[in-house]
């Protein structure tokens, strides 16, 4: 097995060794320190992380599609270059996260196979269509904004490789939100039609963005355990409330409005509140019945198949070079 030295491999242990491992794990979590790949970890911790990190990786990879779709139609060369850089970042973020997931003992190929086979989940947000150029603004501002809100606390996740990947991702992500804000601001200050286009995009992306934080706390069965393990630091509703508070301020600068007349700051709880969200829709989209699920998976499958010859050619070339090298070495030894 490659990289066995660096990866986490569940081993057959005696009950005494397991108990010692659990005690060590508990101590590290209690100290708010970090678990590293070769440490003993509970099977459920490994499983939870593998699910979360691989889903996160898949989201980055599928998340390239709504925006890549607009690269050829960006309104200027500058916007095209920015969008390309952003989509390239998303690819990079997917790769950082697949690497982190691999340290848990799952191969990247297996994860990618699961995604293509429709067995793996990814963020429901990417199953909505990007209909106009203003959607590039709304995705950057709202979707990346919500992602950042969610990801900043994950930089302190108890699993070392995941936290380190998130630090890198958060550093790169901040430009994503700013460029989206800028697109909306320019449209908002443009013609009445452009302003309307910006408002329409915000109207469509607002609720799906809020749902990115996951189901309400009382309907989020895994949250409690994830928080006990220091993977999650704040609950879904807590992060959603913070996000709404930030958006309320920023939308004023944009000269636009949020499509929610029930937003208010609750003086008693000191938290922002928002109108009801359609959780039936969320579960439908997550279950594969959203507007673009089939299209996104089909595109990913085609990209994977279309790239097969490149992967094979590179491997064949590497094999050939190695054969040449070893023949040369043998000749040298013989001489």
């Amino acid at each position, binding site marked *: 097995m490659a*990289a066995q030295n660096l990866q986490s491999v569940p081993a057959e242990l005696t009950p005494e060794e397991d108990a010692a491992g659990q005690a060590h794990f508990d101590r590290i979590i209690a100290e708010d320190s970090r678990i590293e790949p070769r440490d003993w970890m509970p099977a459920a911790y490994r499983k939870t992380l593998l699910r979360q990190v691989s889903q996160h990786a898949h989201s980055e990879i599928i998340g390239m599609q709504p925006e890549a779709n607009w690269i050829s139609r960006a309104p200027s060369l500058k916007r095209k270059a920015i969008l390309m850089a952003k989509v390239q970042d998303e690819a990079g973020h997917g790769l950082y996260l697949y*690497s982190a997931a691999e340290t848990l003992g799952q*191969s990247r190929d297996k994860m990618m196979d699961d995604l293509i086979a429709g067995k793996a989940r990814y963020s429901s947000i990417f199953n909505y269509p990007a209909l106009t150029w203003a959607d590039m603004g709304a995705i950057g501002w709202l979707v990346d904004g919500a992602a950042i809100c969610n990801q900043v606390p994950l930089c302190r996740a108890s699993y070392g490789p995941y936290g380190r990947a998130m630090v890198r991702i958060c550093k790169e992500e901040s430009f994503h939100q700013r460029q989206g804000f800028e697109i909306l601001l320019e449209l908002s200050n443009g013609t009445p039609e452009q302003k309307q286009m910006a408002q329409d995009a915000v109207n469509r992306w607002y609720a799906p963005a809020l749902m990115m934080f996951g189901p309400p706390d009382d309907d989020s069965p895994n949250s409690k355990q994830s928080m006990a393990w220091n993977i999650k630091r704040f609950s879904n509703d807590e992060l959603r409330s913070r996000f709404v508070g930030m958006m309320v301020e920023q939308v004023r600068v944009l000269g636009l409005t949020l499509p929610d007349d029930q937003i208010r700051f609750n003086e008693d709880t000191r938290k922002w509140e928002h109108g009801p969200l359609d959780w039936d829709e969320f579960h439908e989209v997550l279950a594969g019945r959203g507007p673009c699920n089939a299209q996104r998976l089909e595109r990913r499958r085609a990209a994977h198949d279309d790239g097969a010859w490149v*992967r094979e050619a*590179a*491997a064949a070339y*590497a094999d050939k070079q190695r054969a040449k090298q070893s023949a040369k070495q043998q000749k040298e030894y013989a001489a």
Partner: protein
Amino acid sequence: MSPHGNPDAPASSATEINREAPNASPKVEAAPEAGPAVDHHDRSTWGLWEVFVRSSRGLSHVHAGSLHAPDAAMALRNARDLYTRRNEGVSIWVVPADAIAASDPDSKGSFFESPQGKDYRHATYYTKSEGVKHL
């Protein structure tokens, strides 16, 4: 090697590597539940490499992350695209992940405990010189 793609050398030119390419076969790391053979992977599966980046002259190479590549030249290129998109580095090392030997986390105590009780190895152990200048 050209700093920003568009190289005049072919994609996997050996001239990019100033050392013999490590002889890493593109092995797969079998998932624990996958059993001994991983037969659904074809030969296009690429090996795992660890990436080390020197952020500027005078500093050490520091581990940045890992990636998959069929050979050292491609690993270097992938590392450039993946870990230095914003001028994070002036030099990159790539090492086949299975070439790295790591200490065993379980032997933490016995492996690392030797400095314990040896605080005379630190300058702070020597207190009589306090107040003496340039010492």
